[in-house]
C-alpha cells in the first residue's frame, strides 16, 4: 500500500507541471517577430486572391533584411513595408513609437469634399443636429451630413430627422470623408432610407489557413426600419475617403432603386479587421472577412458611383460644392 500512497502523492503534486505540456512561447527576437507576423497574415488575411498578392514572394523579399541585430526601428520599417504590400487601409502595425498604415485608398485621389464649404454655403448657421447627424432643408430637398459612423444616434434622433424631411422632394445623405466606425450604425441608417426588403450584402469569414478557406456566407437582408423610413428618392454623396463601415453602408444602399450614388468611388475597406499581437507586444490588425453585393462584387474595391462627379478645386474654393450641387439639381 505504500506504493499506492506514493503514487497518489506523486499524482497530486507532480502533475502540476503544465509548463511541460503547454507549447513553448516564441522568442522575442526580430526573426521570431517577423515570422509570427508573416505566418498569421498568411493564414488569416482575406484578400490575397482578390489583389493577386503572392505572400511567399513577399517573404522572400523581406526576410533577408531581418537578422539578430535588427533594431526595433529597423524591424518596424521592414514590417511596415511588408504590410504596405497588402494595399489595405485596414492594415496597421502599432508600436509605441509609430503606427504603420496604407492610406493610398484616398491620398492618391481628388479630395472632393470641404466641410467648411458645406457648412458655410449649404448647411448654414441654423442647421439642426441630431446625435452625429447634421441636417437641414435646401430648396425643399433634405440634406444631412454624417461624418463618422463612430458618432452614435438614437432612435429619437433618426425619427426627428425623418419627421423634418417628411415633405421634402428627396434627401441627400452626405457621407463624404466618413472613414467608418460602427457597422451596426451603418445597418440602422441604411434601413432608414430603403423602401423594400431585399438581400443586399453577403459576408464570408475565413475558416482556415488556405487563401480560399471561407465558410458559408452570411446574407444580410435590409428592409424599411420598423421605426420608420424615408419613402422618397435618396442620393448618397461619396468620395474616396468613404471607408470601412461607410463603404459597407454605400454598398448596401447601392442595391435599391430609390437610391442613387453621386460623387467619386468609395475608398473600399470591405473586410472586417481583427487584432493580433507580436511576441514583442506590438499589435497589428488586418482584414479577415470578405463582403460582396448580391451580384458578386467584392466591396473591398470600393463602390463606384451611379453618377460620377468631381469637385473643381477652383469653384470649390469659391464656395461651390459641385457634387452636392449636382445632387440638388437631380432632386429639385
Amino acid at each position, binding site marked *: *500500500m*505504500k506504493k*499506492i*500512497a*506514493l503514487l*497518489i*502523492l506523486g*499524482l*497530486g*503534486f507532480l*502533475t*502540476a507541471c*503544465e*509548463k511541460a*505540456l*503547454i*507549447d513553448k*512561447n*516564441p*522568442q*522575442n527576437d526580430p526573426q521570431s517577430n517577423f515570422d*509570427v507576423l508573416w505566418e*498569421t497574415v498568411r493564414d*488569416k488575411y482575406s484578400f490575397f486572391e482578390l489583389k493577386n498578392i503572392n505572400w511567399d514572394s513577399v517573404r522572400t523579399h523581406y526576410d533577408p533584411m531581418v537578422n539578430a541585430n535588427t533594431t526595433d526601428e529597423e524591424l518596424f520599417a521592414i514590417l511596415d513595408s511588408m504590410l504596405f504590400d497588402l494595399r489595405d487601409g485596414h492594415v496597421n502595425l502599432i508600436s*509605441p513609437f509609430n503606427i504603420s498604415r496604407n492610406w493610398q485608398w484616398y491620398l492618391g485621389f481628388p479630395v472632393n469634399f470641404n466641410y467648411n464649404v458645406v457648412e458655410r454655403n449649404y448647411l448654414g448657421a441654423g442647421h439642426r443636429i441630431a446625435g452625429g447627424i447634421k441636417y437641414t432643408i435646401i430648396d425643399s430637398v433634405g440634406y444631412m451630413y454624417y461624418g463618422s459612423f463612430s458618432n452614435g444616434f438614437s432612435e429619437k434622433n433618426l425619427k426627428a430627422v425623418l419627421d423634418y424631411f417628411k415633405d421634402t422632394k428627396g434627401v441627400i445623405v452626405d457621407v463624404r470623408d466618413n472613414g467608418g466606425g460602427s457597422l451596426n450604425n451603418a445597418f440602422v441608417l441604411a434601413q432608414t432610407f430603403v423602401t423594400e426588403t431585399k438581400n443586399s450584402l453577403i459576408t464570408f*469569414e*475565413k*475558416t*482556415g489557413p488556405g487563401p480560399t*478557406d471561407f*465558410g458559408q456566407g*452570411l446574407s444580410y437582408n435590409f428592409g424599411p426600419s420598423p421605426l420608420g423610413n424615408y419613402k422618397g428618392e435618396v442620393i448618397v454623396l461619396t468620395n474616396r475617403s468613404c471607408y470601412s463601415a461607410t463603404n459597407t453602408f454605400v454598398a448596401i444602399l447601392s442595391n435599391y432603386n430609390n437610391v442613387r450614388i453621386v460623387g467619386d468611388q468609395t475608398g473600399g475597406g470591405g473586410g*472586417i*479587421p*481583427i*487584432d*493580433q*499581437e*507580436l*511576441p*514583442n*507586444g506590438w*499589435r497589428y*490588425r488586418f482584414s*479577415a*472577412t470578405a463582403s460582396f453585393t448580391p451580384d458578386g462584387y467584392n466591396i473591398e474595391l470600393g463602390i463606384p458611383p451611379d453618377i460620377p462627379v468631381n469637385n473643381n478645386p477652383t469653384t470649390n474654393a469659391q464656395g461651390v460644392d459641385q457634387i452636392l450641387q449636382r445632387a440638388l439639381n437631380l432632386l429639385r
Partner: protein
Amino acid sequence: MGKRLVAGLCAILFCTGIKAQLFDGHYMPFGLGYAYQTVKDAALSPVSYSGNLGSIQSGYFDQNEKWLSQFDLLGFSGFQYPDVNPEGNDNQTTVFAGRAHYHLSYKVFEKSNWFFFAGLLSHNVWDYRQVRLYNNSEANFNGMFSAGVQLTAQRPFSLFGEQFGLQYGLGLPVGCYYMRPGYIKPFFADEIASKGFAFWGDYFALDSRTDINWKLNDHNWLRLTYQWEYTRLDVLNKVQTGTHFLSASTLFKF
C-alpha cells in the same frame, strides 16, 4: 520548505488509519481561494498569458457505504498578462471563469484503510476573457463541456487525536462539446463562431485534486484543497490552459 511539505504529506499518508469511511451523509462545501492560470490561445496571442485569480466555490456531495456523488461549483476572476516581454506589452485580459464538475462514483476496492472509487465524470469549463487592447477580437472564450471517467481514493486517519481524511481525485474527460472563437472572430452572425464535439486527439484534459479534510465535529469539517487542471483543444485556434487552485472550505453536514 518543499522537503518539509513532502515530509508532512508522507506523515499524513502513513499515519494511523481509520477503518470507517471518510464521509457519511450529505454535505455542502463553501470556500474561498486563489488560482493561478496560464493560457496559450492562438485566438488571443502567439504567447501565453498568466495571472492570479480569486476564487469562490460551493457545491454538494453525498457519500454512503458504496457511492460517492460529488458536485463542485467554482467561479474565479482576475487579470492575466503576457509571459513574454511583459514590460514591453501593455495588453492584459480580464478573466471571468467558472467550473461545474460532477462525478458519480462507486466503491470498487477497499484495503488497509484506503477506499477506492471509480465513476463517471461531467467536467465543465468556461473561461471568458476580455482583451484590453483589441477591438473586433476583444472577446475570447473557451467553453468545454466534457464527459469522462473519475478515479477517487480516500483515506481517513487520525493525527494528534484529531480525525482527518485525505481524498485524491483524478478526472480524465475523454470528449467534449466546445464553444470557441472562430478562425478569425469570436462571433459570427451574433452567435459563438465555433461549436462542435471534440475527442482525444483534438482534445485532452486532466483534473487532479487533493483534499485534506479535518473533522471539527459531527456536522462540520474544514477542507484544504489543491487542484490542478489542464485542458487542450486543437480545433481552429489551439488553446492550452493550466490552472492551479488552492482553497480553504468549510463543509456542513445536513
